[in-house]
């Protein structure tokens, strides 16, 4: 009987399928498996997502926003108005990307950097954490700069700082929480510092279409409205089309988070779309 057990133990690998045994020798090292592709784009709708531009990739974006839907048939429900933001985003590293842009109607030049601190890990760290910082310069006519009361360019600067926490909950659903701090160097009505809480989500509807929503709740702002945006990301192979509705006509964080006057429920809804094209620079 003991002899039989000896045989059983020592010859066990030979009773198994020999190839399965070989595959078990290849059992992969325990290096962490990162969760990727929480969102399709670097923006959920208007606000930044935890996705960064990949290293050596330059993305050129053309963003369009039309006028409010409730502006009547005379204005073709907003389509007569159009504003555009042109921007470039570039991945310096897998964890650091930078961007510049300019919005037409508000004449704001913006520059931002996104820095990834942590990544979500399968059966490990629960969220991806990214820091986004934006500096905005509102352009003014040069004649205004000569005004003796003005501090020049300094007055026209504003800053946004955000910490983005996002988790891919299922393969189709990702959620993001975005505490935001915005500082204006100069304001006409009080509150240089403004705080908001952003909530965002992405639900994939098919492999190539996802529904995105985003909500910014104002913590200490009395003038401005909370911002609600709903959009679709449609992937066409070469690039991603983003179509959305929002109660803000603006496209850069400082403006859309704190300068939104439209009320979504009263029909102050702006239709917009983004088109992007990527170039590989190496």
């Amino acid at each position, binding site marked *: 009987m003991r002899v039989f057990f000896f045989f059983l133990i020592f010859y066990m690998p030979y009773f198994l399928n020999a190839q399965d045994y070989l595959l078990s020798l290849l059992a992969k090292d325990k290096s962490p498996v990162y969760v990727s592709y929480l969102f399709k784009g670097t923006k959920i709708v208007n606000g930044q997502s935890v996705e960064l531009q990949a290293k050596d990739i330059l993305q050129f974006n053309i963003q369009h926003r039309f006028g409010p839907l409730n502006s009547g048939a005379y204005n073709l429900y907003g389509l007569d108005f159009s504003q555009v933001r042109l921007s470039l985003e570039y991945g310096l590293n897998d964890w650091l990307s930078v961007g510049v842009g300019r919005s037409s109607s508000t004449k704001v030049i913006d520059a931002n950097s996104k820095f990834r601190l942590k990544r979500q890990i399968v059966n490990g760290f629960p969220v991806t954490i990214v820091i986004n910082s934006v500096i905005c310069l509102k352009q003014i006519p040069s004649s205004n700069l000569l005004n003796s009361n003005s501090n020049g360019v300094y007055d026209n600067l504003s800053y946004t700082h955000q910490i983005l926490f996002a988790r891919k909950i299922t393969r189709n659903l990702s959620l993001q929480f975005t505490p935001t701090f915005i500082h204006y160097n100069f304001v006409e009505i009080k509150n240089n510092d403004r705080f908001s809480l952003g909530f965002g989500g992405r639900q994939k509807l098919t492999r190539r279409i996802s529904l995105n929503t985003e909500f910014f709740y104002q913590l200490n702002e009395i003038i401005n409205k909370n911002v609600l945006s709903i959009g679709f990301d449609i992937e066409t192979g070469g690039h991603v089309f983003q179509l959305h509705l929002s109660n803000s006509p603006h496209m850069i964080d400082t403006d859309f988070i704190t300068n939104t006057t439209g009320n979504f429920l009263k029909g102050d809804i702006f239709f917009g779309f983004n088109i992007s094209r*990527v170039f*590989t620079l190496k």
Partner: protein
Amino acid sequence: MNKILLILLISTQIQAQIFLGNSGNISFFSETPIENITAVNDNVSAVFDASNNDLVFQLNISDFIFPNALMQEHFNENYLESDKYPNSTFSGTVTNWDNDNATVEGKLTIHGITNKITANGSFVNNGDFISIVANLSVKLDDYNIKIPTIVMYKIAENIKVHIDIKLKINK
């Protein structure tokens, strides 16, 4: 009786000559008149058992590197679904080993689907090392990898796969 058993055990353990490799290279090419796509995986592992000529390969789908990050995302997210099917394996046997060329038959699993394949290639044993270089063709349809009509002309139906790996004897 016990001594005979011991000799039997030792002899079988020695007989298993195992060759291992962990940094093999598998690349693939999709050629169409519109676009050529190529991706490389440098983390392929394989084992060869010289006692019975069994050969197995394994790789992580997400280790394939594309020159274009967007393509890499589509490859992982839409086509190979690497979150659902994280790796691809081959397990087979060298059936015909003649000089430095060999034929390998076995089961290839990609995207959760297993098919029987046969491949030819160079199979060189230098004592401590075995180098394997082979080419094969993979038909996307066989592995239920669906290409949307909009990019159909950009992605070949048959993907050319190039394998290059060096295995070292495992002592």
